[in-house]
């Protein structure tokens, strides 16, 4: 085979040069819909960066992000990983029955505890009742969907832990209610479904003392059947999509939703434009904002402050039936003193609503101490 080595040479050179030419010729992409993130575009070197080596790291990222047929290569890799029996990718389990579930942090008890201490200290000083609703991650309540032998939920994330830690805060425990409830979670997104949010809303009613609106008073509408959520993007996979449903009241609830920092006022809880985008969960209150003020015509005149992550977004349309005003604060973007804010707005109660994953991975509540 006299041509064997020549052939290999030409094929290697052809492949390298071909990819290089296409890399140079094809236009840049700013955004990857598959991964749902911004891509690195061509960096411009500053002299200082050149010497420190910072530029080269950015440049390497640029080459990888803009590589020809990037999405195809990414999918190829994931397919090979699945073939090799890998059970997780980028902190996400490939669970049973097409479930993607976030891997729970086993050793983050300190972060979790710091958040709870900050919360309880805040509640101690608060003049009004403080409630805490932690939303279990899917891996905690759907353990049968985890891959075989995957680590069980760490004990610090179990309800017994926050119950014993909180002295001045009223915990709302939905763990039993949620256990084994597949319909409360998406398969491809880390959030709860509207169904899950509704169940937690009923539990909240029991704790806070309002009568939840009956299920029959809503018409349940499917607004998207092709929802590929955050976990699909994080693994770079295209699993069977989820269905996104909304609970719309039979008699519409007039409301005024004010995005305070953005100086924007809407008459609906739903930002419909997101239904056609990749990030469909953002249909609820347009994703995350520093401060939202919800005003309804509920005559009782009660005021609620919700301190939260994105899990709350799906539950707020239910809560709105019981409060004249709801202030919705996301501490990651909200930079005022919360205790002062609470006093100024004269709220009647405070609800902290967080996914357990958020409290186990970010010290979001540290800001309460300031």
């Amino acid at each position, binding site marked *: 085979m006299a041509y064997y080595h020549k*052939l290999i040479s030409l094929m290697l050179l052809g492949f*390298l040069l071909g990819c290089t030419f296409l890399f140079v010729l094809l236009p840049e992409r700013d955004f990857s819909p598959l991964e749902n*993130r911004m891509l690195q575009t061509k960096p411009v070197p500053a002299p200082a960066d050149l010497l420190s080596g910072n530029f080269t790291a950015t440049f390497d*990222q640029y080459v*990888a992000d803009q590589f020809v047929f990037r999405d195809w290569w*990414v999918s190829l890799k994931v397919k090979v990983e699945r073939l*090799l029996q890998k*059970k997780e990718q980028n902190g996400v389990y490939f669970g049973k029955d097409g479930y993607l579930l976030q891997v729970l942090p086993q050793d983050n008890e300190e972060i979790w505890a710091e958040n709870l201490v900050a919360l309880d200290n805040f509640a101690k000083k608060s003049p009004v009742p403080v409630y805490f609703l932690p939303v279990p991650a899917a891996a905690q309540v759907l353990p049968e969907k985890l891959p075989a032998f995957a680590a069980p939920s760490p004990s610090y994330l179990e309800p017994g832990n926050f119950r014993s830690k909180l002295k001045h805060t009223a915990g709302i425990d939905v763990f039993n209610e949620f256990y084994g409830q597949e319909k409360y979670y998406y398969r491809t997104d880390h959030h709860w479904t509207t169904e899950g949010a509704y169940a937690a809303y009923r539990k909240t009613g029991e704790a806070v003392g309002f009568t939840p609106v009956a299920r029959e008073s809503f018409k349940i509408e499917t607004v998207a059947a092709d929802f590929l959520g955050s976990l699909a993007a994080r693994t770079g996979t295209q699993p069977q999509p989820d269905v996104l449903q909304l609970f719309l009241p039979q008699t519409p609830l007039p409301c005024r939703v004010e995005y305070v920092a953005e100086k924007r006022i809407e008459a609906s809880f739903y930002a419909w434009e997101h239904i056609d985008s990749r990030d469909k969960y953002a249909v609820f209150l347009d994703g995350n904002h520093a401060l939202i003020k919800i005003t309804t015509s509920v005559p009782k005149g009660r005021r609620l402050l919700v301190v939260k*992550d994105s899990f709350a977004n799906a539950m707020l349309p239910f809560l709105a039936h019981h409060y004249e005003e709801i202030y919705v604060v996301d501490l990651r973007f909200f930079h005022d003193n919360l205790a002062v804010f609470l006093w100024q707005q004269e709220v009647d109660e405070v609800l902290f609503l967080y996914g357990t994953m958020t409290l186990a991975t970010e010290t979001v509540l540290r800001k309460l101490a300031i």
Partner: protein
Amino acid sequence: MVFSSLTFLFLFLPPVLVLYYLLPQAGKNAFLFAASLFFYAWGEPVYIVLMLFSTVADYVLGLIIEKHRHNKQTARLFLVLSLLVNVGILGFFKYFDFLVQSINALWGTNLAILNLPLPLGISFYTFQTMSYTIDVYRNEVPVQRRLIDFCTYVTLFPQLVAGPIVRYQEVEKQLRQRQVDLDTFGLGAKRFIAGLGKKVLLANNIGLLWQQVEQLPPEGLSVVTAWLGIVAYALQIYFDFSGYSDMAIGLGKMLGFTFPENFDYPYTAKSITDFWRRWHMTLGSWFREYVYIPLGGNRRGVPVLLRNLMVVWFLTGLWHGASWNFVLWGLYYGVILAVEKMWLLRGLRKCTPLVSHFYTLILVLLGWVLFVFPDFRQVLQYYLVLFGRGVPLIDRQALYLLSNYLPLLVIGMAAAMPWTKIKIQKLLQEKTLYYPVAILLYFFVLFLSTAYLVDASFNPFLYFRF
């Protein structure tokens, strides 16, 4: 720049290869030198000055040694100067802080450390330039008068940052005259792709297993997890290092150079002596040639032999990093080699391969524990777990890791053995299918490696918020 990066593979390598082949013979070395400087500067813009200083110093000292060849004492003086420059640079940048910290620990002093970053490839290029002046002094190789050729030798990008350690006499003739054609290129291309696959597909992915085990507290491990972890590390370091050497040798071939081999299926060794003839061979032969034999080797009686072994293995350990665990790791092998030389070797040759193979692998794996943990307490803890002290034999974690990594580990172990290759080759040659299948296989590896490199940056949701 590293070989296993998209920037190197698709933006640096293609234009360099094309230009190199288009240039006339006379311009090739200068072009390689320029390309190598760019390659180095990509990761280490500042230390390039240090490398050039070391290169020029040895070039000049080589000329001076040659000039004073008739006067042994003067020549010797300049050789010593060359060694001082090289060992001085290496000592200062790699070992100064280590020395200061050791002194502080020993005498309770509080001397300040410098915290200098380690210059890329310094352990390799200082050893290469030393091989040049020593060989010129020994009159084993003619002096190099063309500065560009000497610079090309030292900075040659395939072997600049991670070896193999190419002694000057091994490429001296090739610097002037080498075969550059598509057939040699093809040989090199095959070797390069094999190395890329070893590094990107095997080392990186098996390394993830070790990374997970390493992060667990030792008291939370089970016996199986600990063995899984250290086996994964052994495979990772082998595929990483030998893969890099394969890429270097392959790239060298593509440019017309023949570099020395660096690995020869070390995990098939049947004694530790055998293992070290198969592992990082160019480092071993460097120390044999320039330390062990000049000290008298094994020809001056047992006490001198033992001293020489300990000196060489102390240095070999220290070469791997400025930390006591590397020294300990080196001495560990020094002692085993001494024991083998004195008593064991004959017995090992006689016993069944299964036993000698098992003996070697266990010792090598225990050696990697020493190598990987800088803190001796961690080493001891890990040893206790490996031998089952106070931990379960197997637990859920071990089963989970096994279910994730068993296929990859089996592929890795098979790839570390030569028989897979030989058997497949024989089988295919008989069926005359060898060539098409081989070509497909190489491109399969190249494609998969590209996919894994593209996805290595796969870290989505930069603006992802809960």
